[in-house]
């Protein structure tokens, strides 16, 4: 017999459906009262955009398909990107402030069809604020509204977990190193093992060396030193490839290759990353402390160095203060330096809301600051953005003490 039942983890009882509906009404009313405009982006989205913008974990779990016209599409695995597309569509030109809310289903593959706490299709109720006049205030407000919604849904016991990619980026900017090393480290933030490995490599850059044939090597070296133009190095590369009989094809350009070679040549000449700086970055990534103690813990790490990231630390403190003003006491929330959620579009403050029942692996809500997403989708310049989404099926599960 073929199994015809729904996937495990799909709650089917009418009591559940009614309770979920009531919960949605409560949450969307809170969002509306706070002045967020409800939107309903399409469920079917262009695959390319999502696959390019989300992290590896989610990429592997996105339902992608080709329609009869040959278009590559996906079932939205999240609503932040569709909301951002809508913002770009309406206000991309002007960059004016906008506040959106949504309550809709998203889809993520789960092995074996999923579980109650990890269903493959579930609802997200969320809010996104674009180009807010006061970004720190917007962060506090979004966090507070998420917490208020969870409380109004009937859950009393929940906790926060926070991180701040703004502090990490400030640290990277303040440490002396070539710009391309910064880009590499920043890119590896979400995979801690890879991040540490990159740090180790940067401490001994001579190992980067490539044996390059003369006269190409001379040309690359000269371009690196600035004695010839980059364009001349590209020509030297082209001649080299022709001599070697190597076919040039595809989308990757000779310009990119010459650029990489110049970077590698520069690495060979660069002084290695200061081991103290590497230790500092490693210590920051590992840092785990209550939020209120985080700025001083970071200051302690920086003691004896000339590195100054006071503005980023002050922003963190200001945010805690604003949250307290909104009635959310974040002082005891665990902060970790390496916490960035598994979405590579975050650029600043990030948070998750956890229940004792489901724990850290299955947060009830999460969000943060993503200042580069609007630009990545097509805006002419970066637009400040902050948002949060509640996993309403998980929330209901937590409210019902785990009963389906």
């Amino acid at each position: 017999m073929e199994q015809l039942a729904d996937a495990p983890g799909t709650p089917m009882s009418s009591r559940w459906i009614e309770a979920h509906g009531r919960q949605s009404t409560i949450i969307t009313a809170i969002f509306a009262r706070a002045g967020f405009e409800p939107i309903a982006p399409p469920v079917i989205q262009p695959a390319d955009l999502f696959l390019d913008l989300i992290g590896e974990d989610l990429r592997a779990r996105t339902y992608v398909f080709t329609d009869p016209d040959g278009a590559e599409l996906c079932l939205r695995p999240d609503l932040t990107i569709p909301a951002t597309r809508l913002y770009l569509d309406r206000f991309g030109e002007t960059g004016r402030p906008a506040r959106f809310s949504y309550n809709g289903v998203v889809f993520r593959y789960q092995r074996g069809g999923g579980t109650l706490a990890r269903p493959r299709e579930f609802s997200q109720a969320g809010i996104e604020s674009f180009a807010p006049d006061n970004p720190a205030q917007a962060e506090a407000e979004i966090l507070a509204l998420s917490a208020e919604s969870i409380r109004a849904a009937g859950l009393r016991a929940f906790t926060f977990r926070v991180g701040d990619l703004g502090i990490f980026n400030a640290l990277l900017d303040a440490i002396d190193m070539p710009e391309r090393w910064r880009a590499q480290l920043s890119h590896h933030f979400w995979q801690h093992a890879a991040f540490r490995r990159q740090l180790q490599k940067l401490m001994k850059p001579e190992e980067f060396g490539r044996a390059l044939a003369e006269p190409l090597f001379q040309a690359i070296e000269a371009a690196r030193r600035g004695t010839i133009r980059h364009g001349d190095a590209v020509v030297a590369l082209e001649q080299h490839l022709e001599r070697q009989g190597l076919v040039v094809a595809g989308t990757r350009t000779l310009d990119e290759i010459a650029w990489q070679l110049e970077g590698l040549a520069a690495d060979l000449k660069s002084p290695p990353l200061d081991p103290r700086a590497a230790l500092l970055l490693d210590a920051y990534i590992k840092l785990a402390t209550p939020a209120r103690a985080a700025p001083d813990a970071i200051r302690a790490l920086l003691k004896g160095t000339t590195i100054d990231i006071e503005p980023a630390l002050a922003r963190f403190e200001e945010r805690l203060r604003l949250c307290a003003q909104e009635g959310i006491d974040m002082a005891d929330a665990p902060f970790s330096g390496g916490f960035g959620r598994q979405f590579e579009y975050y650029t600043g403050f990030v948070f998750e809301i956890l229940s004792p029942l489901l724990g850290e692996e299955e947060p009830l809500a999460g969000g943060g600051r993503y200042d580069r997403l609007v630009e990545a989708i097509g805006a002419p310049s970066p637009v400040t953005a902050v948002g949060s989404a509640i996993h309403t099926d998980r929330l209901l599960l937590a409210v019902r003490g785990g009963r389906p």
Partner: protein
Amino acid sequence: MSDVTTDKLVLAVPSKGRLMEETAQLFARGGLKLARTGNDRGYRGELQGLPGVEVAFVSASEIADLLRKGEVHLGVTGEDLLRDLIPEAETDVEFLKALGFGHADVVVAVPDFWIDVSTMSDLEEAALLYRRRHGTRMRVATKYRTLTRMFFSGHRYGGEARSVDTVSMYRIVESLGATEGAPGAGLAELIVDITSTGSTLKANSLRVLDDGIILKSEANLVMSRRAAWTDETLALKDAVLGSLG
């Protein structure tokens, strides 16, 4: 579960090509003749000399699927397909014996003129710049989605535990045939594909990365842990394995 209802042992073997011929020769060396029943084009057969074994002739990739679902007891197919189609292979199947034929490597290959890229670490760097320049991730053409994902995120088959270079700034585009032509045709920037002599890669101006061998694959006799096993079928499994010496 239609196939596993009797005390017969169902053995899936490749339905055509070199893999089928070599499988037949393998059993022949053990004194068993792989024969089709009914007309010659049938998809059912038997192992003459070992009553109780029912043979299913199916495509190599389908064999992995049948083993994963437990719809056959045993199967002969390439490790590449098994590892790719059964992400958690160890829980669903047991590799009984490497069979010494069907050798091929699953590799990461890039256009030969990328002289700045010879390792996975170089690839990640090149991919970062590519993303900044083109606004999209580099595309990897492959039919091996799982193997690619696992390898690029740091998993190493054969279990070297040391830390390895990962690549994350990429996306997979599915390729169901002639993968090696994808970069030349502008459909992808690089590929993950199978190679035995390397000549097809060479003909397409592609080169394997120094640390880009994902899996050294060969044909394996594999047992499904999900199939319904009885004392009779277990004994038959031992007999099949025993005949292979």
